[in-house]
């Protein structure tokens, strides 16, 4: 093959080396960024975000069992075994309680009287759920 021999591969200038270094470095940065992004997105699936009147008030890791009170003690939220639910609510219909445990990305529990939304963020995988019909 004309022009493609050992000399072609081994005899490079400082500029060539710098160029190769820049290209490899760029690839490394892109790879690291993709890895970081994947970890961040996956981590989102393990958290529930609690909003009151659209303002984020709590982030709860779903991998840590816990129980908290909201709406001045009128509502209890429970996290257990990677799922979250409204364990107690003084609101009239208690629709939020009847939603039960949720754990899929995209699932939400809403309490209209207390203006509370609990949302598990969707994850970037094929089976991620964008919304839930009920």
């Amino acid at each position: 093959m004309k022009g493609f021999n050992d000399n072609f591969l081994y005899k490079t200038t400082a500029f060539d080396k710098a160029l190769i270094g820049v290209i490899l470095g760029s690839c490394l940065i892109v790879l690291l960024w993709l890895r970081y992004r994947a970890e961040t997105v996956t981590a989102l699936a393990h958290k529930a975000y609690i909003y009151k009147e659209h303002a984020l008030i709590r982030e709860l890791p779903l991998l840590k069992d816990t129980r908290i009170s909201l709406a001045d003690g009128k509502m209890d939220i429970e996290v257990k075994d990677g799922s979250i639910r409204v364990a107690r609510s003084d609101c009239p219909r208690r629709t939020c309680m009847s939603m039960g445990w949720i754990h899929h990305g995209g699932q939400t529990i809403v309490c209209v009287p207390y203006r509370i939304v609990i949302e598990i963020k969707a994850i970037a995988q094929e089976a991620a759920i964008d919304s839930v019909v009920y």
Partner: protein
Amino acid sequence: MKEKRAGLKIIGGVAAGVLFYLYFLSAYNGYRFHREKETRFMMDTYVAITGIGPKYLNSKAISLAFGRIREIDEKFNFLNSKSPLYAFNNEGKPITDPEVVDLIKKALDVYRESEGAFDITVAPIVSLWGFYDKEFRLPSDGQIQAALRYVGSQHLKVNAGVVEKDDPRVKIDLGGIAKGYAVQEALKILNAQGLKSALIDAGGDVYALGMKGRKLWHIGIKDPRADGLLGYVKVKDVAVMGSGDYERFFMKDDKRYHHIIDPRTGYPTQGIAGVTLIYSDPVLAQAWTKVVFVHGVKKGLALLRRLPEMEAIVAKDSGEIECSAGCSRVLNKL
């Protein structure tokens, strides 16, 4: 030797060009597929709109869509003292607002096609059970039979764009169809603004506009008798509307009494726990969910065949799942 080095430089240049192109593509996709989600409390529930598209389009389109939903919420809420429905129900004033009359006509079409299963005049019975004032109670059979005398869409007359009633006790509640209408109107706004990809979630009733970027939208279907989901559907350009006996209910002597009332008997329907319909028209999709509850699986699904391409997922009280003909292809397991 210079030629050989030049060759290497060309390779390096091409590689750098490819990297620049990928960077540019990533930035362009970030712009083109910008994702924005807004949630607001309205229509006695929450409404979330997610838009995927250029940022300048998303914000304006979503804001205008919410404005339209707010208008509909005020106009179609029979508890709003300024609404035409409030005046009709409480003062007997005929309804002349063309938008309200049009939706009532559509509801009456569904009433006829569903053989009376979807009825917007069932409000007095729903009230007897306490589902409006949230003070749930078991009405006596005498109370139910008395109220049934003024329940039935045959009591409504539509002439020359005016809706009237033949009995002052007749009341209209458009709650079983107005949410679908609000979704449809919001959809019109998003389309008019040029948004090609969006998800409207009106308290668990969803419309998926276009694709989620380059993928179909994944909409989960809640399991009515357990935590978690029955599965999910992959959709675009359709409404996915649901009704369940777990949304509003109370238990008395281990028996469940829910808010979906059979307008022929005055009692909550039995045998079905949840119905999900997938159809291009959100107004019809919402209204027809009740039809399956009232008629049961066999007749309900038979009636649904009048709407070609409508898919249904029915969760029976017993835990069994039944689907329309094409449903088994549609419902994906998690």
